[in-house]
């Protein structure tokens, strides 16, 4: 009789304890992004910080994701008020230099900040090898499901978001992800003018 009761209690209690235990392993602050694997949201943003060398873009130029079809794009959202962004700045600049000639484009996107502050911050940090773009009213940030900075998105040659990194990104993560994306075959045709048509293009291969 007691064994019966104990087993009944266990049947009820074990799943509840397991569920609560599983909940403890999760970070409630972390929002799982549905974007990886999907077509990267298209954007068209103006350059406010030019970058240097191979990654240079003139200030005021408009950068469109659609213009980078067939290239790997790293999109790093940052802000001058973000302390963690300082930790990754040098790493991003250095890795951007290394991958500039390999068909990888780096862009910074200013989040919830004004370009003047951004330019001042870049100068204070000793420059930035890749250009930074302004995102008025954070529309692109919302399009990418951003909830804080820094966040870095890796967009593959097929125009899909391959990976999203939350927090300061390390050189190892950058190199690993970029190497794996460069190892993938480039899409056959570049006729699309929008990243959203990527699924059609890949399904035709």
């Amino acid at each position: 009789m007691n064994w019966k009761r104990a087993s009944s209690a266990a049947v009820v209690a074990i799943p509840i304890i397991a569920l609560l235990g599983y909940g403890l392993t999760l970070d409630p602050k972390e929002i799982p992004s549905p974007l990886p694997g999907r077509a990267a949201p298209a954007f068209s943003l103006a350059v406010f910080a030019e970058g240097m060398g191979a990654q240079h873009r003139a200030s005021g130029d408009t950068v469109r994701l659609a213009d980078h079809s067939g290239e790997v794009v790293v999109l790093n959202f940052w802000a001058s008020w973000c302390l963690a962004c300082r930790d990754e700045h040098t790493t991003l600049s250095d890795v951007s230099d290394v991958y500039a000639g390999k068909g990888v484009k780096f862009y910074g996107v200013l989040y919830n900040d004004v370009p003047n502050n951004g330019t001042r911050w870049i100068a204070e940090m000793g420059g930035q090898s890749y250009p930074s773009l302004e995102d008025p009213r954070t529309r692109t940030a919302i399009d990418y499901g951003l909830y804080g900075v820094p966040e870095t998105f890796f967009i593959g040659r097929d125009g899909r978001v391959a990976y999203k990194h939350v927090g300061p990104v390390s050189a190892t993560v950058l190199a690993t992800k970029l190497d794996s994306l460069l190892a993938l075959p480039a899409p056959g045709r570049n006729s699309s003018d929008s990243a959203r048509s990527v699924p059609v293009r890949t399904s035709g291969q």
Partner: protein
Amino acid sequence: MIATARRPRRGTGGQRVGGRGVAPLLLAVLLLAGGSAGSAGRLCAQQVEVVTTGNRTLDERTRDVASQLRCPVCQGNSIQDSPSELAQEMKGVVRDQLAAGRTPQEVKQYFIDKYGEWILLEPTASGFNLVVYLLPIVGVVGGGALIWRAVRKWTTPPETGAAAGPGPRS
């Protein structure tokens, strides 16, 4: 008995209907007269009302959708209640999309596509999410059954004699 009781009611009722029927008729005539005279004015008033409440309606719809979306910064608040700048911008997106003719469901779907179902303050009642809705009911029903059983056990007087003995335990 019942039939006789009904007859007088019908009779008096009929008289009452006839007597009271004058008032609605008079009211209808007055309304028609007044209506024909003031119909143009009322139409204008209605049109003005639609125009003036157009923005208010958009605000209300924005508030309604924004109240259902979780703020990614505060997480416990809706973007309607959150003071964070991101929430305010997201509310702007809601408003813009509603103004562009998207339905509230389409606007919510846009945010689900970007942030996942996490963005909804109330998860949709389908699939695994049903657990959230069913578990409390199961808990209440199960708990109630346990309490009922325990109360019955406590309040039932113990049986005397051999029937209450250790027989069943062996």
